[in-house]
């Protein structure tokens, strides 16, 4: 997030949610948005293909066709430009590329976008006005924006909208991705990415590489590595021979599970480090038992870049070892000793090569934590980014044309399938399906189907149906509900016995980010 979470409760006069089902996936952030609307009268604009809970209290709700995000946002910008609701001063002083962007936007009239998005033109106008006219307006998004073959374009479009209205660099504004996992921000910050060292320093930059070679005392590879999705494909083609998986469950979380399974079966070595015998661990050649968050010290970095302490409450269960010790033991045996007596000692080394964390210590993180960047020990952290200037200097507008999703419905597969999460479960269910109350409350998967579609297929609520795509099929309970439109179905990906990712597409990745298109693939529902 460019801004901090608590600004959504007080500072934002308008909140625009697109592709985030906040009350289910980030419930506590959802509470704050609700309070801001109810107590302070903040305006709420919601764009989502499903009529999610927050849509009910929105000033404008746009139920758009999955995968048409760019057309929708471009049309909002078209309204803002044509009605002169843009922030001219901000555009002049802080941005570049406006003219090129505006030239593309010109054709995206609300009426034109209505044909693509299925959102009434008048609603697009209302939404654009609410967002642009507010003193401070915040955009929040999640995987609904990113998990598309045009994910990068979608994110750039969201940024365009914020730049156009000057909604960056001050409290209550911003471009705010709500990240879905406890430490996904931290994992990125720490360089668990194939193209960057810690703090997003590029592995291809020779000056950066020299710095790390000096710090770590070895020579380092100058080549970008493989993304997760690319690695699976390389394993499939037998170019990748060994894969080490820590606390992940690609046999449930990755697209096209049949493809994933074949890829993992091809490996000479699959090492899995986890707390449970996951679907992926079952395929492993070696399994290491790691620990839960209750059994270790360390830090997590949340979605607003706040680094916070994790404190050990109990001793590691059974014969398990904290994950950092497993890594140290393995490294030692690979001839590169990594000796640390505690997570704090690792943190203290990490911050010497991670400029955005340089000013942090465990002592300073007590209590409220610190938002990066925090470059020195006097610095109080940075809840709001881009106050004076952007990282590159001027904010760059991108001229983005709408592109169709990779796999569109046809006669054989006439519906659009989207996947996502449920309030009561988390990711591949490794933890929540072993949490007695959560799993008792929601023990099985469902597919949400519009009543008209269900009637046409002679399906009643609660009936087991088959969902079929070009990759495979699952049997799952039908939930007949009009929160989805007639041409859309939705299912959760937490349940390995009715795994949504048997259905998803591993071929349609965003060309830049390599993210799979979980929000759109072509499917059909069959009566069993």
């Amino acid at each position, binding site marked *: 997030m460019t801004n901090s979470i608590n600004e959504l409760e007080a500072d934002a006069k308008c909140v625009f949610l697109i592709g985030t089902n906040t009350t289910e996936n980030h419930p506590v952030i959802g509470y704050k948005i609700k309070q801001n609307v109810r107590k302070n009268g903040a305006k709420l604009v919601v764009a989502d293909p499903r009529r999610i809970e927050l849509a009910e209290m929105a000033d404008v709700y746009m139920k758009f066709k999955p995968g048409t995000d760019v057309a929708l946002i471009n049309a909002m910008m078209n309204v803002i430009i044509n009605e002169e609701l843009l922030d001219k001063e901000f555009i002049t002083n802080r941005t570049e590329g406006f003219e090129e962007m505006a030239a593309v936007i010109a054709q995206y009239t609300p009426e034109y976008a209505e044909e693509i998005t299925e959102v009434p033109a008048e609603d697009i106008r209302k939404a654009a006005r609410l967002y642009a006219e507010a003193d401070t307006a915040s955009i929040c998004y999640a995987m609904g924006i990113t998990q598309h073959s045009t994910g990068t374009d979608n994110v750039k479009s969201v940024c365009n909208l914020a730049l156009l209205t000057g909604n960056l660099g001050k409290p209550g504004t911003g471009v705010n991705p709500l990240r879905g996992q406890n430490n996904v921000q931290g994992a990125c910050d720490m360089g668990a990415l194939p193209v960057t060292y810690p703090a997003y320093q590029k592995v291809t930059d020779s000056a950066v590489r020299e710095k790390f070679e000096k710090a770590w005392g070895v020579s380092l590879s100058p*080549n970008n*590595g493989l993304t997760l999705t690319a690695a699976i494909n390389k394993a499939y083609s037998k170019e990748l021979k060994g894969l080490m998986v820590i*606390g992940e469950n690609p046999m449930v979380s990755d697209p096209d599970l049949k493809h994933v399974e074949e890829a993992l079966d091809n490996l000479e070595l699959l090492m899995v480090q986890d707390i449970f015998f996951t679907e992926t661990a079952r395929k492993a050649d070696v399994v290491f038992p790691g620990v839960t968050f209750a059994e270790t010290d360390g830090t997590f970095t949340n979605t607003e870049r706040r680094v916070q302490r994790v404190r050990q409450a109990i001793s590691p*269960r059974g014969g398990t070892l904290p994950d950092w010790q497993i890594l140290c033991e393995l490294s030692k045996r690979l001839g590169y000793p990594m000796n640390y007596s505690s997570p704090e000692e690792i943190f203290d080394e990490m911050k010497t090569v991670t400029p955005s964390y340089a000013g942090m210590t465990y002592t300073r993180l007590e209590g409220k934590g610190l938002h990066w960047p925090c470059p020195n020990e006097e610095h109080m952290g940075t809840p709001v980014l881009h106050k004076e200037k952007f990282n590159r200097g001027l904010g760059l507008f991108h001229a983005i044309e709408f592109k169709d999703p990779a796999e569109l419905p046809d006669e054989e597969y006439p519906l659009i399938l989207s996947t996502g999460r449920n309030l009561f479960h988390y990711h591949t269910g490794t933890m929540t399906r072993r949490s007695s109350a959560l799993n008792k409350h929601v023990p099985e998967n469902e597919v949400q189907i519009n009543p008209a579609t269900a009637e046409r297929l002679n399906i009643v609520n609660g009936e087991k149906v088959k969902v079929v795509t070009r990759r495979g099929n699952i049997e799952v309970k039908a939930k007949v509900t009009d929160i989805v439109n007639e041409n859309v179905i939705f299912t959760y990906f937490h349940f390995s016995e009715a795994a949504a990712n048997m259905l998803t597409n591993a071929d349609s990745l965003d060309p830049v980010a390599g*993210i799979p298109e979980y929000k759109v693939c072509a499917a059909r529902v069959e009566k069993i």
Partner: protein
Amino acid sequence: MISLTIDGREIQVPRGTTLLTACRQAGADIPTLCYDPDLRLAGSCRMCVVEVKGRRNLVAGCVTPAENNMVVETESPDVVESRKIILELLLARHKLTCHTCESDGSCKLQDYCYRYGVTDSRFTGEFHDGPHFSKEDANPFIKRDYDKCIMCTRCVRACEEITGAQAINVMNRGHHAKIATIFDGNLEDSPCVFCGQCIMVCPVGALTSKVAAGKGKSYQTEKVLTTCTYCGTGCTLELNVKDDKVVGVTSVRDENWSPVNRGALCVKGRFGWDFINSSDRLTTPLIRENGELRPASWDEALDFTAAKIKEIKGEHGPDSLAMFSSARVTNEENYLAQKLMRAAIGTNNVDHCARL
């Protein structure tokens, strides 16, 4: 600033300060049940009554503004008598099963009865055979025992003002008043999202966690402050530990220690912790042999892995190896994971599930 005298002590407070805050600032220990600093004032329980010189009636401190030159007594005989009567009235419809109550030791009603020596009630009234509000609720998260409810309405206000669910409210009046969902149904048929904020604010044992039930009373557990393991919001929660086991989750509402959520949690954070002690936990390394995974020692498993990695690297080069690190583990572990791949193995093939 205005000045007033509380229990003989003169203090200064900003205009607009309530008497309750002023009294506490003066060091007086004022009992409260319905008062909650994070919620709209209710002024209904009357436990915080104090005596203001010149006023005919005792006043409720939580809803009375402090005034210049007020002279206040916080434990005068009238105040004490009044509080005792209130406690007796509350006991009249409170099921006294403290010995088996989850809130034993952390119950304000119990504390105040102890403080004022109230053992029984003269006001059993129409509930001579005991109260009748017990509510069987099938949900696996929240136990609602309204025979212990004191009608402070903090749960109602927390549900509306913290979570925004508006699932519950007061139903009926007088002796028959109780907390209910619409049409007095079950929570799962209401807008309840099972966040448990109602448990967090309940001053007695009317609302408790079914997941933590029977595993330890509050005073038997150590509380360890940490960051939640689920979504990216980064809520602070307290793991309740007894005999080296996590037996519950609670939260703190001080923003200096719970900066993101100020005590509010969701259903996963508050109730989704018993996987930690699951009997399914992996407790020993495993190695595949003849197609089957078998238990192995740490040394054996680590040596096996290291040898295999070296063999693959020797034969096919470092880029034939990759690692999926984890958005679940700590920063420190992610730092080590990428360092291991880059420095020990020599490849940038390290990623994690950020895209999934």
